[in-house]
């Protein structure tokens, strides 16, 4: 054996990768994700330092600007609300390995559907809020669903690539809403519709400031309730319902699903429709809770695309999506406060890269060995 040890650099540290053959404990993925965010913040800090800033001060400022007091926390939640719903939308489609990247368009169509109830008008302006809001939610849910169902149907019946079709439908959705905003529903030639009446808007916390003074100036609106309820409902669907079981089975192994007698065509259409509907509900929440009129620009702000990222980062888990969305809401909010304004975007990017890279640790084990001697 002497020969062998001599040919080997004695004691050289080797890093070996081995596929994990066991299931890591439940806390492990969470710890790895938190570790990844921590590493990302350090890397981001280095970049900030190089660009002449003070990383600690910057992070402190970001934290203050998004979580510092109840007012900005409320703004963070406002930003997070549409992301929760679009991320839930993406998560259910991704769960079945349907790559719906049309949440952006489904979101806008949802907003349009809700607006149509007010502006067409399908209901008279003096309708009570208890009827108005559910009707708007239903219309937006339905319009988003239709926008998801189209690529779903094409995929299921004609095997049309849903990535392309759902992406293209985004552009159609924007043009469609533009048509209504610029033309039919335009307010005096401006690129926006008239403002919705109060009873067609989602209530904000500040609306109750007269009875509860603490709520003064807080913009968090009832759309958050949509988001949380949808997340809980989705959790039950995915992990506790027969349908969710079918979705998980098809997502993991469609051939096994077929063998178990599951109808893949029908589920493809249904899941895409549900995905679109959830994104549409996000549109309802944004148009009725924040914008309060139909207007393209604030609705076309990329919530659908952010939803894709958030869904992945949350590993498609409906409840984790709420937390990750709030983190992203904070970064969006801080983006307006930090100069140069690219910094929060950069941090967002670094976090994303680190989290995706950390996934590796869940599948492989690192082993450090010194050159062994017989």
């Amino acid at each position, binding site marked *: 054996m002497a020969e062998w040890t001599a*040919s080997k650099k004695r004691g050289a540290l080797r890093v070996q990768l081995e596929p994990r053959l066991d*299931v890591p404990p439940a806390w492990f993925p969470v710890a790895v994700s938190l570790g990844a965010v921590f590493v990302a913040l350090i890397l981001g800090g280095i970049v900030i330092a190089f660009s002449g800033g003070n990383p600690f001060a910057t992070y402190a400022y970001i934290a203050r600007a998004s979580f510092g007091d109840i007012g900005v926390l409320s703004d963070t939640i406002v930003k997070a609300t549409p992301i929760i719903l679009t991320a839930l939308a993406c998560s259910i489609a991704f769960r079945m390995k349907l790559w719906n990247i049309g949440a952006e368009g489904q979101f806008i169509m949802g907003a349009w559907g809700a607006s149509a109830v007010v502006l067409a008008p399908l209901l008279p302006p003096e309708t009570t809020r208890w009827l108005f809001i559910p009707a708007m939610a239903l219309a937006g849910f339905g319009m988003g669903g239709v926008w998801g169902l189209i690529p779903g149907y094409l995929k299921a019946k004609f095997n049309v690539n849903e990535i392309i079709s759902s992406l293209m439908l985004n552009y159609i959705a924007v043009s469609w809403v533009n048509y209504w905003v610029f033309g039919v529903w335009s307010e005096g030639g401006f690129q926006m519709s008239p403002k919705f009446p109060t009873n067609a808007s989602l209530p904000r916390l500040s609306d109750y400031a007269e009875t509860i003074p603490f709520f003064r100036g807080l913009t968090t609106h009832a759309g958050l309730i949509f988001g949380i309820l949808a997340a809980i409902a989705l959790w039950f669907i995915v992990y*506790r319902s027969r349908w969710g079981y079918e979705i998980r089975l098809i997502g993991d*192994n469609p051939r096994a699903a077929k063998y*178990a*007698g599951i109808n893949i065509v029908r589920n493809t259409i249904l899941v895409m429709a549900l995905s679109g509907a959830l994104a549409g509900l996000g549109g309802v929440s944004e148009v009725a809770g924040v914008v309060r009129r139909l207007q393209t620009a604030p609705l076309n702000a990329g919530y659908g695309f952010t939803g894709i990222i958030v869904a992945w980062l949350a590993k498609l888990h409906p409840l984790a999506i709420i937390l990750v969305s709030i983190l992203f809401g904070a970064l969006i909010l801080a983006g307006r406060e930090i100069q140069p304004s690219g910094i929060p975007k950069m941090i967002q990017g670094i976090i994303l890269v680190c989290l995706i890279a950390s996934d590796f640790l869940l599948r492989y084990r690192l082993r450090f060995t010194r050159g062994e001697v017989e």
Partner: protein
Amino acid sequence: MCTCFLVYLATSPLEHAVTANTTTDLQQPPLAVEMRGIVKRFPGVLANDHVNFELRAGEIHALLGENGAGKSTLMNILAGLYKQDAGTIKVKGKTLEFSSPRDAIKAGIGMVHQHFMLVPSQTVTENILLGLDEPRFLMRLQEYDKKIADLGDKYGLKVDPRTKIWQLSVGEQQRVELLKMLYRGADVLVMDEPTAVLAPQEIEGLFETLHSMVAQGKSVIFISHKLNEVASIADRVSVLRRGKVTASGVPAKGVSRQELASMMVGREVALAVDKKPKTPGEIILDVKDVHAENDKGLPCLRGLSLHVRAGEIVGIAGVAGNGQVELSQVIAGLRPCKKGQALLNGKKVSNRDTRYGIEHGMSYVPEDRTHVGSSPNLSVTDNVIMKNYRKPPISKGSMLDMSAATKFAQELKEAYDIIVPTVNTPVRLLSGGNLQRVILAREISGHPNFMVAVQPTRGLDVGAIEGVHRLLLTQREADAAVLLISEELEELIALSDRIYVIYEGRMMGEIKVEGAEPDKTLMDAIGLMMTGTPLEQIHMEGAPTHG
């Protein structure tokens, strides 16, 4: 036990004996490969525990062992795919260290894997040149076509260099893999279970090729867990069990199959099964004149009729790819039936929703455990409820009762000896035998009155095979009708009450099996039928037949 089909199809024993003598006894040539004290650890497993292995130049050396015995690990180390934790490798007397397969090939070691690494849309020549530095700039392919054709002629590896890979049969693709290694100048060829994917005729061809390569100075390591093949091809045998060597370079002629088997598993293995006489009941499955097409749209079943009665096991024998798998899919409703029909208890199941069969007592053990029979990233629980999640107590309205599902999985885990830390473990982490137990547990727990099992023991080790056989016989005892599709003739004869032989989607004949000790005439007859001779044209002496 009988001599197997594969043995007498292989090259003549005489020629074989000559090769063995010249290489092993007379010259004592230098060692082509010498591995000493090889240790390789995987998490929780010691895959190779101080393994020594010697390969003489010009010999065929069989490396035998059960699944997970460490033979593939050892050979992957030799081929530079894994790195040993400890131990040395000498090639032609020189100590070498491999850090990649490239190094191993440079040293003249080429491995042909079980799953071929070929690009289907490219030609044979293109595949062989892939990854080499030649041709440097212009693709002068004709020149290389010629070179490769010559190389093929030299070693009896007939394959047209200009054909695209997808047009080739599995046997021909294997030849391309061999050519690839020979073109790279390999002197030592490692074949990882090369016969697992081949038809008997192709096996014969492969064995001839291996002999001719050895005659021209190459050395071959032949990984296998099939005892009969080892006896017919190898000069010497080494056996691994649980990472340790239990036999090192024993001459293949001097050792019986029983001895090899006990070295593999460490105890005497009963290859025969305990099948009690039983009178079959009424017809459960009735297949009438079924026609179907394969995945490429070509006819693969051409008017097949057969039936299975309650309480009998009916075997389907045939060389792989003659329509067996498609037959099972037609019965399960997974493949369209162009003409004719399959009836389960008198009700049509072909061209019908798969769910109908599932809900009417049909269970199906598919050939492909990981891609069809299970869902790798889902838990054991999720996998065992695949067939009964629509029924109470697992189903509760539109919801699933997860505690009932967990309880069900727990019961199966205990009843079927599924070795797994918890029922929440994803099944991709299970060994082949354990995964098969999960699938069988699921399929049997529904108390089927009809079961179709396709290659239920493929790739399992001897212990696991015994378990599967026992479970199939239990189904027979419980008066279920069992259709067993297998390429292991011994298994079919041991378990079946009747055997149908099919060839190119047509029925070649039906043979009644009486007693578990079939004679050579019977084996010969089945062999002939498997290669396309109908039963009527075979003159059998004394073998009981009907149909």
